[in-house]
Protein backbone atom coordinates (compact mmCIF):
# COMPACT_ATOMS: atom_id res chain seq x y z
CA UNK A 1 0.00 0.00 0.00
CA UNK A 2 2.60 2.63 0.91
CA UNK A 3 3.81 4.91 -1.84
CA UNK A 4 7.20 4.14 -3.28
CA UNK A 5 9.98 6.08 -1.63
CA UNK A 6 10.67 9.15 -3.69
CA UNK A 7 14.07 10.70 -4.17
CA UNK A 8 14.73 13.83 -2.22
CA UNK A 9 14.29 16.95 -4.28
CA UNK A 10 16.93 18.74 -2.26
CA UNK A 11 19.77 16.95 -4.00
CA UNK A 12 21.20 18.27 -7.23
CA UNK A 13 23.96 16.05 -8.31
CA UNK A 14 26.51 17.38 -10.74
CA UNK A 15 26.79 13.92 -12.32
CA UNK A 16 30.49 14.21 -13.06
CA UNK A 17 30.67 11.77 -15.94
CA UNK A 18 28.09 13.32 -18.24
CA UNK A 19 29.21 16.73 -17.05
CA UNK A 20 32.78 16.12 -18.09
CA UNK A 21 31.63 14.69 -21.40
CA UNK A 22 29.58 17.81 -22.07
CA UNK A 23 32.52 19.95 -21.05
CA UNK A 24 34.81 18.07 -23.40
CA UNK A 25 32.33 18.42 -26.23
CA UNK A 26 32.01 22.13 -25.57
CA UNK A 27 35.77 22.50 -25.49
CA UNK A 28 36.03 20.83 -28.87
CA UNK A 29 33.55 23.16 -30.52
CA UNK A 30 35.85 25.96 -31.76
CA UNK A 31 38.22 23.59 -33.55
CA UNK A 32 35.23 21.88 -35.05
CA UNK A 33 33.87 25.16 -36.35
CA UNK A 34 37.24 26.19 -37.65
CA UNK A 35 37.68 22.92 -39.45
CA UNK A 36 34.35 23.30 -41.19
CA UNK A 37 34.88 26.98 -41.95
CA UNK A 38 31.99 27.97 -39.73
CA UNK A 39 34.08 29.98 -37.29
CA UNK A 40 31.31 32.55 -37.10
CA UNK A 41 29.55 30.07 -34.86
CA UNK A 42 32.29 30.22 -32.25
CA UNK A 43 30.95 33.65 -31.41
CA UNK A 44 27.42 32.31 -31.35
CA UNK A 45 28.51 29.55 -28.99
CA UNK A 46 30.20 32.07 -26.67
CA UNK A 47 27.00 34.02 -26.60
CA UNK A 48 25.01 30.93 -25.72
CA UNK A 49 27.32 30.12 -22.85
CA UNK A 50 27.10 33.67 -21.59
CA UNK A 51 23.34 33.46 -21.57
CA UNK A 52 23.59 30.06 -19.96
CA UNK A 53 25.56 31.73 -17.20
CA UNK A 54 22.93 34.43 -16.84
CA UNK A 55 20.12 31.89 -16.89
CA UNK A 56 21.89 29.82 -14.26
CA UNK A 57 22.13 32.87 -12.04
CA UNK A 58 18.43 33.46 -12.49
CA UNK A 59 17.69 29.81 -11.82
CA UNK A 60 19.53 30.12 -8.54
CA UNK A 61 16.97 32.56 -7.18
CA UNK A 62 14.01 31.43 -9.26
CA UNK A 63 14.33 27.68 -9.27
CA UNK A 64 15.90 27.10 -5.90
CA UNK A 65 14.87 30.16 -3.96
CA UNK A 66 11.38 30.59 -5.38
CA UNK A 67 12.05 34.26 -6.08
CA UNK A 68 10.79 35.17 -9.51
CA UNK A 69 13.02 38.04 -10.51
CA UNK A 70 11.75 39.92 -13.50
CA UNK A 71 14.67 42.29 -13.48
CA UNK A 72 17.71 40.19 -14.08
CA UNK A 73 18.53 41.89 -17.32
CA UNK A 74 19.31 44.97 -15.27
CA UNK A 75 22.13 43.16 -13.48
CA UNK A 76 23.46 41.92 -16.77
CA UNK A 77 23.32 45.49 -18.00
CA UNK A 78 25.09 46.87 -14.95
CA UNK A 79 27.89 44.37 -15.46
CA UNK A 80 28.15 45.28 -19.10
CA UNK A 81 28.19 48.99 -18.37
CA UNK A 82 30.89 48.55 -15.75
CA UNK A 83 33.13 47.08 -18.41
CA UNK A 84 32.08 49.69 -20.95
CA UNK A 85 32.57 52.67 -18.68
CA UNK A 86 35.93 51.44 -17.44
CA UNK A 87 37.04 50.92 -20.99
CA UNK A 88 35.92 54.37 -21.97
CA UNK A 89 38.05 55.73 -19.18
CA UNK A 90 41.00 53.70 -20.34
CA UNK A 91 41.14 50.65 -18.08
CA UNK A 92 40.96 47.57 -20.16
CA UNK A 93 42.11 44.95 -17.68
CA UNK A 94 39.70 42.10 -17.23
CA UNK A 95 41.17 41.53 -13.79
CA UNK A 96 39.87 44.90 -12.75
CA UNK A 97 36.68 45.24 -14.72
CA UNK A 98 35.18 41.77 -14.37
CA UNK A 99 35.38 41.54 -10.58
CA UNK A 100 34.24 45.12 -10.36
CA UNK A 101 31.29 44.26 -12.58
CA UNK A 102 30.39 41.48 -10.17
CA UNK A 103 30.69 43.87 -7.29
CA UNK A 104 28.45 46.40 -8.97
CA UNK A 105 25.95 43.67 -9.80
CA UNK A 106 26.04 42.38 -6.24
CA UNK A 107 25.56 45.87 -4.88
CA UNK A 108 22.59 46.60 -7.11
CA UNK A 109 21.08 43.24 -6.27
CA UNK A 110 21.63 43.76 -2.57
CA UNK A 111 19.88 47.11 -2.61
CA UNK A 112 17.07 46.01 -4.89
CA UNK A 113 16.70 42.73 -3.04
CA UNK A 114 16.64 44.41 0.33
CA UNK A 115 13.58 46.37 -0.69
CA UNK A 116 11.91 43.84 -2.96
CA UNK A 117 12.10 40.95 -0.55
CA UNK A 118 9.51 42.63 1.60
CA UNK A 119 7.02 41.50 -1.00
CA UNK A 120 6.03 38.06 -2.22
CA UNK A 121 4.88 36.28 -5.32
CA UNK A 122 3.71 38.41 -8.17
CA UNK A 123 4.36 41.56 -6.19
CA UNK A 124 7.98 40.52 -6.07
CA UNK A 125 7.96 39.96 -9.82
CA UNK A 126 6.65 43.43 -10.42
CA UNK A 127 8.82 45.28 -7.97
CA UNK A 128 11.97 43.74 -9.40
CA UNK A 129 10.69 44.79 -12.79
CA UNK A 130 10.21 48.30 -11.49
CA UNK A 131 13.75 48.58 -10.25
CA UNK A 132 15.12 47.13 -13.45
CA UNK A 133 13.16 49.71 -15.40
CA UNK A 134 14.59 52.46 -13.23
CA UNK A 135 18.11 51.29 -13.96
CA UNK A 136 17.19 51.01 -17.61
CA UNK A 137 15.98 54.60 -17.78
CA UNK A 138 18.96 55.71 -15.73
CA UNK A 139 21.28 54.38 -18.39
CA UNK A 140 19.08 55.86 -21.12
CA UNK A 141 19.49 59.28 -19.59
CA UNK A 142 23.25 59.05 -19.10
CA UNK A 143 24.36 60.91 -22.17
CA UNK A 144 28.13 60.54 -21.49
CA UNK A 145 27.77 56.79 -21.76
CA UNK A 146 25.80 56.87 -24.95
CA UNK A 147 22.30 57.22 -23.55
CA UNK A 148 19.78 55.35 -25.61
CA UNK A 149 22.40 54.77 -28.34
CA UNK A 150 24.58 52.72 -26.08
CA UNK A 151 28.32 52.68 -26.49
CA UNK A 152 30.58 50.70 -28.72
CA UNK A 153 33.67 49.24 -27.11
CA UNK A 154 36.90 49.78 -28.96
CA UNK A 155 38.30 46.43 -27.91
CA UNK A 156 37.78 43.45 -25.64
CA UNK A 157 39.18 43.31 -22.12
CA UNK A 158 42.83 42.37 -21.56
CA UNK A 159 43.14 39.17 -19.63
CA UNK A 160 46.85 38.48 -19.95
CA UNK A 161 47.84 34.84 -19.49
CA UNK A 162 48.82 34.83 -23.11
CA UNK A 163 45.21 34.96 -24.19
CA UNK A 164 43.97 37.39 -26.78
CA UNK A 165 40.28 37.87 -26.20
CA UNK A 166 39.75 39.52 -29.54
CA UNK A 167 40.40 36.07 -30.92
CA UNK A 168 36.99 34.42 -30.89
CA UNK A 169 38.34 31.02 -29.92
CA UNK A 170 40.35 32.37 -27.03
CA UNK A 171 37.36 34.31 -25.88
CA UNK A 172 35.21 31.23 -26.12
CA UNK A 173 37.56 29.22 -23.93
CA UNK A 174 37.60 31.94 -21.32
CA UNK A 175 33.82 32.05 -21.31
CA UNK A 176 33.67 28.29 -21.03
CA UNK A 177 36.08 28.28 -18.13
CA UNK A 178 34.17 30.97 -16.32
CA UNK A 179 30.91 29.19 -16.91
CA UNK A 180 32.21 25.82 -15.75
CA UNK A 181 33.68 27.34 -12.62
CA UNK A 182 30.55 29.23 -11.64
CA UNK A 183 28.38 26.27 -12.47
CA UNK A 184 30.41 24.01 -10.24
CA UNK A 185 30.27 26.55 -7.44
CA UNK A 186 26.50 26.83 -7.76
CA UNK A 187 26.16 23.07 -7.63
CA UNK A 188 28.24 22.93 -4.45
CA UNK A 189 26.21 25.69 -2.90
CA UNK A 190 22.90 24.02 -3.64
CA UNK A 191 23.89 20.80 -1.96
CA UNK A 192 25.40 22.57 1.00
CA UNK A 193 23.48 23.76 4.02
CA UNK A 194 22.81 27.07 2.35
CA UNK A 195 21.18 25.37 -0.61
CA UNK A 196 18.95 23.29 1.62
CA UNK A 197 17.82 26.36 3.50
CA UNK A 198 17.16 28.20 0.26
CA UNK A 199 15.03 25.37 -1.03
CA UNK A 200 13.29 25.02 2.29
CA UNK A 201 12.28 28.66 1.99
CA UNK A 202 10.97 28.02 -1.48
CA UNK A 203 8.87 25.16 -0.16
CA UNK A 204 7.45 26.79 2.94
CA UNK A 205 8.68 30.11 4.07
CA UNK A 206 6.54 30.40 7.18
CA UNK A 207 7.69 27.07 8.44
CA UNK A 208 11.32 28.01 7.85
CA UNK A 209 10.85 31.08 9.94
CA UNK A 210 9.19 29.07 12.66
CA UNK A 211 12.15 26.72 12.57
CA UNK A 212 14.40 29.64 13.37
CA UNK A 213 15.89 30.48 10.01
CA UNK A 214 16.42 34.14 9.17
CA UNK A 215 14.54 33.81 5.90
CA UNK A 216 15.11 37.33 4.71
CA UNK A 217 18.86 37.11 5.20
CA UNK A 218 19.23 33.88 3.24
CA UNK A 219 17.07 35.16 0.44
CA UNK A 220 19.03 38.37 0.25
CA UNK A 221 22.34 36.56 0.13
CA UNK A 222 21.06 34.34 -2.67
CA UNK A 223 19.70 37.30 -4.56
CA UNK A 224 22.96 39.18 -4.20
CA UNK A 225 25.00 36.22 -5.37
CA UNK A 226 22.70 35.83 -8.30
CA UNK A 227 23.08 39.50 -9.16
CA UNK A 228 26.85 39.15 -9.10
CA UNK A 229 26.79 36.18 -11.44
CA UNK A 230 24.38 37.92 -13.78
CA UNK A 231 26.68 40.93 -13.84
CA UNK A 232 29.59 38.69 -14.67
CA UNK A 233 27.57 37.39 -17.58
CA UNK A 234 26.98 41.01 -18.51
CA UNK A 235 30.68 41.77 -18.44
CA UNK A 236 31.29 38.85 -20.77
CA UNK A 237 28.42 39.90 -22.98
CA UNK A 238 29.81 43.41 -23.36
CA UNK A 239 33.05 41.85 -24.48
CA UNK A 240 31.38 39.43 -26.80
CA UNK A 241 29.41 42.02 -28.71
CA UNK A 242 31.77 44.96 -28.08
CA UNK A 243 28.67 46.96 -27.47
CA UNK A 244 26.69 48.04 -24.45
CA UNK A 245 23.27 49.56 -24.57
CA UNK A 246 20.22 50.01 -22.41
CA UNK A 247 18.34 47.76 -24.83
CA UNK A 248 20.03 44.82 -23.13
CA UNK A 249 18.41 45.88 -19.86
CA UNK A 250 14.86 46.11 -21.10
CA UNK A 251 12.11 44.10 -19.48
CA UNK A 252 11.76 41.99 -22.57
CA UNK A 253 15.31 40.79 -21.99
CA UNK A 254 14.47 39.86 -18.43
CA UNK A 255 11.46 38.07 -19.83
CA UNK A 256 13.59 36.18 -22.30
CA UNK A 257 15.88 35.06 -19.50
CA UNK A 258 12.87 33.80 -17.58
CA UNK A 259 11.65 31.91 -20.60
CA UNK A 260 15.06 30.30 -21.00
CA UNK A 261 15.02 29.03 -17.44
CA UNK A 262 11.45 27.80 -17.67
CA UNK A 263 12.23 26.13 -20.96
CA UNK A 264 15.23 24.33 -19.53
CA UNK A 265 13.64 23.43 -16.24
CA UNK A 266 13.07 25.58 -13.19
CA UNK A 267 14.88 24.15 -10.21
CA UNK A 268 17.00 21.77 -12.24
CA UNK A 269 20.72 22.30 -11.91
CA UNK A 270 21.15 22.11 -15.65
CA UNK A 271 17.99 24.07 -16.37
CA UNK A 272 19.69 27.36 -17.15
CA UNK A 273 22.29 25.86 -19.42
CA UNK A 274 19.88 23.73 -21.38
CA UNK A 275 17.25 26.45 -21.59
CA UNK A 276 19.61 29.13 -22.85
CA UNK A 277 21.20 26.86 -25.42
CA UNK A 278 17.89 25.47 -26.62
CA UNK A 279 16.31 28.90 -26.87
CA UNK A 280 19.17 30.58 -28.70
CA UNK A 281 19.67 27.58 -30.94
CA UNK A 282 16.05 27.63 -31.97
CA UNK A 283 16.22 31.33 -32.60
CA UNK A 284 19.41 30.98 -34.62
CA UNK A 285 17.99 28.21 -36.75
CA UNK A 286 14.53 29.66 -37.25
CA UNK A 287 15.78 33.14 -38.14
CA UNK A 288 17.74 31.58 -40.95
CA UNK A 289 14.66 29.99 -42.43
CA UNK A 290 11.87 32.46 -42.19
CA UNK A 291 11.12 36.00 -41.30
CA UNK A 292 8.13 34.70 -39.40
CA UNK A 293 10.38 32.80 -37.03
CA UNK A 294 8.54 34.04 -33.97
CA UNK A 295 5.51 32.05 -34.99
CA UNK A 296 7.48 28.85 -34.96
CA UNK A 297 9.38 29.75 -31.84
CA UNK A 298 6.05 30.34 -30.13
CA UNK A 299 4.71 27.04 -31.38
CA UNK A 300 7.73 25.14 -30.09
CA UNK A 301 7.58 26.83 -26.69
CA UNK A 302 3.88 26.07 -26.43
CA UNK A 303 4.49 22.47 -27.30
CA UNK A 304 7.24 22.16 -24.74
CA UNK A 305 5.15 23.64 -21.99
CA UNK A 306 2.26 21.35 -22.83
CA UNK A 307 4.20 18.10 -22.90
CA UNK A 308 6.87 18.95 -20.35
CA UNK A 309 5.27 21.33 -17.87
CA UNK A 310 8.43 21.65 -15.84
CA UNK A 311 10.76 22.26 -18.72
CA UNK A 312 12.83 20.11 -20.99
CA UNK A 313 14.64 18.49 -18.11
CA UNK A 314 11.39 17.18 -16.70
CA UNK A 315 10.73 15.36 -19.94
CA UNK A 316 12.49 12.11 -19.02
CA UNK A 317 10.58 11.88 -15.77
CA UNK A 318 7.28 12.58 -17.50
CA UNK A 319 8.00 9.96 -20.13
CA UNK A 320 8.98 7.44 -17.50
CA UNK A 321 5.75 8.09 -15.66
CA UNK A 322 3.75 7.66 -18.85
CA UNK A 323 5.49 4.41 -19.58
CA UNK A 324 4.83 3.15 -16.09
CA UNK A 325 1.20 4.14 -16.30
CA UNK A 326 0.88 2.25 -19.55
CA UNK A 327 2.52 -0.79 -18.04
CA UNK A 328 0.36 -0.54 -14.97
CA UNK A 329 -2.90 -0.06 -16.83
CA UNK A 330 -3.40 -3.60 -18.15
CA UNK A 331 -2.65 -4.97 -14.70
CA UNK A 332 -5.68 -3.11 -13.42
CA UNK A 333 -7.99 -4.85 -15.85
CA UNK A 334 -8.16 -8.12 -14.01
CA UNK A 335 -10.55 -8.15 -11.07
Amino acid sequence: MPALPSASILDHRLQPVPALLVLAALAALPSLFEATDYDFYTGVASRMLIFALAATSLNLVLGFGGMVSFGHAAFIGMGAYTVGILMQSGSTSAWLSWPLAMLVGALCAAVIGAISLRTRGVYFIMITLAFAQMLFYLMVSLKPYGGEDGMSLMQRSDLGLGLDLSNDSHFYYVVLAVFALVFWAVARLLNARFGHVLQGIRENETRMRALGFAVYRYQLVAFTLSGAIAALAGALLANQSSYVSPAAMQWSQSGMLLIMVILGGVGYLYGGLLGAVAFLLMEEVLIGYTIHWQLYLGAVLLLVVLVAPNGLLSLPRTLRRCARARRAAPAQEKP
Partner: protein
Amino acid sequence: MNTILILEQLLNGLQFGLMLFLLAAGLTLVFGIMDLINLAHGSLYMLGAYLIATIAAASGSFWLGLAAGTAATAVLGLVLEKTTIQRFYKRDHLSQVMGTFAILLMANEAVRMIWGPQPLQLSPPDALAGPVELWPGFFYSAYRLFIIAMGLLVAAVLYVLITRTRIGMQVRAGASNREMALAMGANVRWLFSGLFVFGAVLCALAGGLLGPLLSVQVGMGESILILAFVVVVIGGIGSIRGALLGALLVGLVDTAGRTLIPVLFRQLMAPDIAASAGPAVASILIYVLMAAVLFFKPSGLFPARG
Protein backbone atom coordinates in the same frame (compact mmCIF):
# COMPACT_ATOMS: atom_id res chain seq x y z
CA MET B 1 -4.69 79.50 -19.12
CA ASN B 2 -2.88 77.44 -16.56
CA THR B 3 -5.98 76.07 -14.91
CA ILE B 4 -7.17 74.94 -18.31
CA LEU B 5 -3.91 73.13 -18.83
CA ILE B 6 -4.19 71.40 -15.51
CA LEU B 7 -7.81 70.52 -16.11
CA GLU B 8 -7.01 69.13 -19.50
CA GLN B 9 -4.21 67.06 -18.05
CA LEU B 10 -6.58 65.74 -15.43
CA LEU B 11 -9.00 64.67 -18.12
CA ASN B 12 -6.17 63.11 -20.10
CA GLY B 13 -5.03 61.25 -17.07
CA LEU B 14 -8.56 60.10 -16.37
CA GLN B 15 -9.03 58.92 -19.92
CA PHE B 16 -5.73 57.08 -20.01
CA GLY B 17 -6.37 55.61 -16.60
CA LEU B 18 -9.80 54.33 -17.51
CA MET B 19 -8.48 52.62 -20.61
CA LEU B 20 -5.79 51.02 -18.52
CA PHE B 21 -8.56 49.96 -16.22
CA LEU B 22 -10.35 48.07 -18.96
CA LEU B 23 -7.22 46.05 -19.56
CA ALA B 24 -6.26 45.78 -15.94
CA ALA B 25 -9.74 44.69 -14.90
CA GLY B 26 -9.64 41.69 -17.20
CA LEU B 27 -6.12 40.96 -16.14
CA THR B 28 -6.79 41.21 -12.45
CA LEU B 29 -9.84 38.96 -12.73
CA VAL B 30 -8.10 36.33 -14.75
CA PHE B 31 -5.05 36.62 -12.60
CA GLY B 32 -6.50 37.22 -9.16
CA ILE B 33 -9.48 34.97 -9.51
CA MET B 34 -8.40 32.24 -11.88
CA ASP B 35 -4.80 32.51 -10.70
CA LEU B 36 -3.59 32.60 -14.26
CA ILE B 37 -0.78 34.86 -15.33
CA ASN B 38 -1.87 35.67 -18.81
CA LEU B 39 0.78 37.39 -20.89
CA ALA B 40 -1.43 36.89 -23.91
CA HIS B 41 -3.88 39.37 -22.47
CA GLY B 42 -2.20 42.07 -24.53
CA SER B 43 -2.58 39.90 -27.60
CA LEU B 44 -6.33 39.82 -27.15
CA TYR B 45 -6.21 43.59 -26.94
CA MET B 46 -4.27 43.68 -30.20
CA LEU B 47 -6.51 41.14 -31.92
CA GLY B 48 -9.57 43.02 -30.76
CA ALA B 49 -8.22 46.25 -32.18
CA TYR B 50 -7.34 44.60 -35.49
CA LEU B 51 -10.70 42.93 -35.83
CA ILE B 52 -12.53 46.10 -34.95
CA ALA B 53 -10.42 48.17 -37.34
CA THR B 54 -10.93 45.67 -40.14
CA ILE B 55 -14.66 45.44 -39.71
CA ALA B 56 -14.97 49.19 -39.27
CA ALA B 57 -13.02 49.75 -42.47
CA ALA B 58 -15.05 47.20 -44.41
CA SER B 59 -18.41 48.42 -43.20
CA GLY B 60 -17.53 52.07 -42.91
CA SER B 61 -19.07 52.19 -39.44
CA PHE B 62 -17.03 52.52 -36.30
CA TRP B 63 -19.92 51.33 -34.15
CA LEU B 64 -20.54 48.24 -36.19
CA GLY B 65 -16.82 47.54 -36.07
CA LEU B 66 -16.76 47.96 -32.32
CA ALA B 67 -19.70 45.65 -31.78
CA ALA B 68 -18.83 42.96 -34.29
CA GLY B 69 -15.11 43.10 -33.55
CA THR B 70 -15.73 42.73 -29.85
CA ALA B 71 -18.01 39.78 -30.48
CA ALA B 72 -15.43 38.21 -32.74
CA THR B 73 -12.77 38.64 -30.09
CA ALA B 74 -15.05 37.00 -27.57
CA VAL B 75 -15.36 33.98 -29.84
CA LEU B 76 -11.63 33.98 -30.36
CA GLY B 77 -11.12 34.17 -26.62
CA LEU B 78 -13.41 31.21 -26.10
CA VAL B 79 -11.58 29.14 -28.66
CA LEU B 80 -8.25 30.07 -27.15
CA GLU B 81 -9.47 29.21 -23.68
CA LYS B 82 -10.97 25.89 -24.66
CA THR B 83 -8.01 24.76 -26.70
CA THR B 84 -5.03 25.99 -24.72
CA ILE B 85 -5.48 28.28 -21.77
CA GLN B 86 -7.60 25.73 -19.96
CA ARG B 87 -4.64 23.43 -19.71
CA PHE B 88 -2.73 26.03 -17.76
CA TYR B 89 -5.10 26.52 -14.84
CA LYS B 90 -3.64 23.72 -12.80
CA ARG B 91 -0.09 24.58 -13.73
CA ASP B 92 2.23 26.74 -11.71
CA HIS B 93 2.74 30.38 -12.57
CA LEU B 94 5.92 29.81 -14.45
CA SER B 95 4.49 27.39 -16.97
CA GLN B 96 1.67 29.85 -17.42
CA VAL B 97 4.19 32.56 -18.15
CA MET B 98 5.88 30.46 -20.77
CA GLY B 99 2.69 29.13 -22.31
CA THR B 100 1.04 32.48 -22.64
CA PHE B 101 4.27 34.06 -23.80
CA ALA B 102 4.34 31.49 -26.59
CA ILE B 103 0.80 32.48 -27.50
CA LEU B 104 1.83 36.11 -27.50
CA LEU B 105 4.67 35.44 -29.93
CA MET B 106 2.40 33.48 -32.20
CA ALA B 107 -0.36 36.05 -32.10
CA ASN B 108 2.03 38.83 -33.01
CA GLU B 109 3.46 36.94 -35.92
CA ALA B 110 0.09 35.73 -37.12
CA VAL B 111 -1.24 39.26 -37.16
CA ARG B 112 1.82 40.39 -39.06
CA MET B 113 1.27 37.65 -41.59
CA ILE B 114 -2.42 38.38 -42.01
CA TRP B 115 -2.50 42.17 -41.87
CA GLY B 116 1.08 43.03 -42.75
CA PRO B 117 3.55 45.05 -40.72
CA GLN B 118 1.97 48.43 -41.40
CA PRO B 119 -0.31 49.84 -38.77
CA LEU B 120 -4.01 49.77 -39.53
CA GLN B 121 -6.14 52.82 -39.61
CA LEU B 122 -9.09 53.20 -37.29
CA SER B 123 -10.80 56.57 -37.16
CA PRO B 124 -13.14 57.80 -34.50
CA PRO B 125 -16.78 58.06 -35.56
CA ASP B 126 -17.46 61.36 -37.29
CA ALA B 127 -19.70 62.57 -34.53
CA LEU B 128 -16.84 62.35 -32.07
CA ALA B 129 -13.97 63.31 -34.36
CA GLY B 130 -13.68 66.93 -33.36
CA PRO B 131 -13.25 68.81 -30.13
CA VAL B 132 -16.09 69.96 -27.91
CA GLU B 133 -16.08 73.21 -26.04
CA LEU B 134 -16.61 72.22 -22.44
CA TRP B 135 -16.90 75.83 -21.51
CA PRO B 136 -15.88 78.98 -23.30
CA GLY B 137 -12.28 78.67 -24.36
CA PHE B 138 -11.84 75.11 -23.16
CA PHE B 139 -11.82 72.62 -25.99
CA TYR B 140 -11.47 68.94 -25.35
CA SER B 141 -11.53 65.97 -27.67
CA ALA B 142 -15.06 64.59 -27.83
CA TYR B 143 -13.69 61.14 -28.40
CA ARG B 144 -11.62 61.21 -25.25
CA LEU B 145 -14.69 62.27 -23.31
CA PHE B 146 -16.55 59.34 -24.79
CA ILE B 147 -13.80 56.99 -23.65
CA ILE B 148 -14.04 58.38 -20.14
CA ALA B 149 -17.76 57.72 -20.08
CA MET B 150 -17.36 54.16 -21.37
CA GLY B 151 -14.64 53.43 -18.85
CA LEU B 152 -16.76 54.58 -15.95
CA LEU B 153 -19.70 52.55 -17.16
CA VAL B 154 -17.68 49.36 -17.44
CA ALA B 155 -16.16 49.93 -14.03
CA ALA B 156 -19.57 50.17 -12.43
CA VAL B 157 -20.92 47.07 -14.17
CA LEU B 158 -17.86 45.06 -13.27
CA TYR B 159 -17.89 45.99 -9.66
CA VAL B 160 -21.45 44.87 -9.19
CA LEU B 161 -20.90 41.69 -11.16
CA ILE B 162 -17.94 40.48 -9.19
CA THR B 163 -18.72 41.58 -5.70
CA ARG B 164 -22.49 41.33 -5.62
CA THR B 165 -23.48 38.28 -7.63
CA ARG B 166 -23.28 34.62 -6.82
CA ILE B 167 -21.45 33.97 -10.05
CA GLY B 168 -18.78 36.35 -8.84
CA MET B 169 -18.57 34.54 -5.52
CA GLN B 170 -18.32 31.14 -7.16
CA VAL B 171 -15.64 32.34 -9.49
CA ARG B 172 -13.63 33.70 -6.59
CA ALA B 173 -14.17 30.49 -4.68
CA GLY B 174 -12.98 28.45 -7.63
CA ALA B 175 -9.87 30.52 -7.82
CA SER B 176 -8.76 30.01 -4.26
CA ASN B 177 -9.66 26.34 -4.09
CA ARG B 178 -10.74 24.81 -7.33
CA GLU B 179 -11.25 21.35 -5.93
CA MET B 180 -13.47 22.52 -3.12
CA ALA B 181 -15.53 24.69 -5.44
CA LEU B 182 -16.07 21.67 -7.64
CA ALA B 183 -17.05 19.60 -4.63
CA MET B 184 -19.59 22.28 -3.77
CA GLY B 185 -21.13 21.94 -7.21
CA ALA B 186 -19.67 24.86 -9.13
CA ASN B 187 -19.08 24.25 -12.78
CA VAL B 188 -15.64 25.75 -12.54
CA ARG B 189 -14.78 24.97 -16.11
CA TRP B 190 -17.52 27.09 -17.56
CA LEU B 191 -17.17 29.76 -14.94
CA PHE B 192 -13.56 30.15 -15.91
CA SER B 193 -14.29 30.07 -19.61
CA GLY B 194 -16.89 32.72 -19.10
CA LEU B 195 -14.55 34.87 -17.11
CA PHE B 196 -11.78 34.52 -19.63
CA VAL B 197 -14.11 35.49 -22.44
CA PHE B 198 -15.28 38.40 -20.38
CA GLY B 199 -11.67 39.51 -20.02
CA ALA B 200 -11.26 39.18 -23.77
CA VAL B 201 -14.29 41.38 -24.33
CA LEU B 202 -12.83 44.06 -22.09
CA CYS B 203 -9.57 43.79 -24.03
CA ALA B 204 -11.30 44.18 -27.35
CA LEU B 205 -13.24 47.12 -26.04
CA ALA B 206 -10.05 48.78 -24.88
CA GLY B 207 -8.37 47.99 -28.19
CA GLY B 208 -11.27 49.36 -30.18
CA LEU B 209 -11.59 52.49 -28.09
CA LEU B 210 -7.89 53.22 -28.02
CA GLY B 211 -7.41 52.29 -31.67
CA PRO B 212 -8.37 55.70 -33.00
CA LEU B 213 -5.98 57.39 -30.58
CA LEU B 214 -3.05 55.03 -30.82
CA SER B 215 -2.16 53.07 -33.83
CA VAL B 216 -3.43 49.59 -34.41
CA GLN B 217 -0.20 47.74 -34.88
CA VAL B 218 1.68 44.56 -34.11
CA GLY B 219 3.13 44.58 -30.62
CA MET B 220 0.70 47.23 -29.37
CA GLY B 221 -0.23 44.86 -26.55
CA GLU B 222 3.12 44.48 -24.90
CA SER B 223 3.98 47.87 -23.53
CA ILE B 224 0.46 48.42 -22.37
CA LEU B 225 0.38 44.95 -20.82
CA ILE B 226 3.24 45.90 -18.56
CA LEU B 227 1.35 49.01 -17.53
CA ALA B 228 -1.73 46.94 -16.90
CA PHE B 229 0.29 44.64 -14.68
CA VAL B 230 1.62 47.64 -12.82
CA VAL B 231 -1.95 48.76 -12.25
CA VAL B 232 -3.04 45.33 -11.07
CA VAL B 233 -0.20 45.09 -8.62
CA ILE B 234 -0.60 48.59 -7.26
CA GLY B 235 -4.29 47.97 -6.76
CA GLY B 236 -3.87 44.55 -5.20
CA ILE B 237 -4.30 41.40 -7.21
CA GLY B 238 -7.86 40.33 -7.80
CA SER B 239 -9.41 43.55 -6.60
CA ILE B 240 -11.59 45.44 -9.04
CA ARG B 241 -11.68 48.41 -6.74
CA GLY B 242 -7.90 48.30 -6.58
CA ALA B 243 -7.60 48.04 -10.32
CA LEU B 244 -9.73 51.12 -10.78
CA LEU B 245 -7.82 53.13 -8.25
CA GLY B 246 -4.49 51.87 -9.51
CA ALA B 247 -5.40 52.67 -13.09
CA LEU B 248 -6.45 56.19 -12.26
CA LEU B 249 -3.33 56.68 -10.18
CA VAL B 250 -1.07 55.45 -12.95
CA GLY B 251 -2.95 57.44 -15.56
CA LEU B 252 -2.73 60.65 -13.60
CA VAL B 253 0.84 60.22 -12.43
CA ASP B 254 2.02 59.32 -15.88
CA THR B 255 0.28 62.26 -17.50
CA ALA B 256 1.30 64.69 -14.82
CA GLY B 257 4.84 63.40 -14.86
CA ARG B 258 5.17 63.91 -18.57
CA THR B 259 4.12 67.52 -18.36
CA LEU B 260 5.44 68.60 -15.02
CA ILE B 261 8.78 66.87 -14.69
CA PRO B 262 10.39 68.35 -17.82
CA VAL B 263 9.14 71.80 -16.82
CA LEU B 264 10.49 71.31 -13.35
CA PHE B 265 13.82 70.06 -14.59
CA ARG B 266 14.20 72.92 -17.01
CA GLN B 267 13.99 75.27 -14.11
CA LEU B 268 16.41 73.29 -12.00
CA MET B 269 19.25 72.42 -14.35
CA ALA B 270 21.01 73.13 -17.57
CA PRO B 271 18.70 72.80 -20.57
CA ASP B 272 20.57 69.97 -22.26
CA ILE B 273 20.73 67.87 -19.11
CA ALA B 274 17.11 68.64 -18.43
CA ALA B 275 16.21 67.65 -21.96
CA SER B 276 17.61 64.18 -21.50
CA ALA B 277 16.95 63.63 -17.80
CA GLY B 278 13.41 65.02 -17.86
CA PRO B 279 11.81 62.45 -20.12
CA ALA B 280 13.81 59.64 -18.52
CA VAL B 281 12.58 60.54 -15.08
CA ALA B 282 9.06 60.96 -16.38
CA SER B 283 9.26 57.43 -17.76
CA ILE B 284 10.25 55.88 -14.48
CA LEU B 285 7.72 57.76 -12.47
CA ILE B 286 5.11 55.03 -12.54
CA TYR B 287 7.71 52.45 -11.59
CA VAL B 288 8.77 54.61 -8.69
CA LEU B 289 5.12 54.86 -7.79
CA MET B 290 4.74 51.09 -7.88
CA ALA B 291 7.88 50.47 -5.88
CA ALA B 292 6.78 53.01 -3.30
CA VAL B 293 3.31 51.53 -2.99
CA LEU B 294 4.70 48.04 -2.59
CA PHE B 295 7.26 49.22 -0.11
CA PHE B 296 4.57 50.46 2.20
CA LYS B 297 1.87 48.00 1.24
CA PRO B 298 3.53 44.80 0.07
CA SER B 299 0.25 43.39 -1.22
CA GLY B 300 -1.02 46.44 -3.03
CA LEU B 301 -3.56 49.00 -1.97
CA PHE B 302 -6.53 46.67 -1.70
CA PRO B 303 -5.26 43.18 -1.12
CA ALA B 304 -8.14 40.94 -2.15
CA ARG B 305 -6.88 37.87 -0.40
CA GLY B 306 -6.38 39.12 3.11
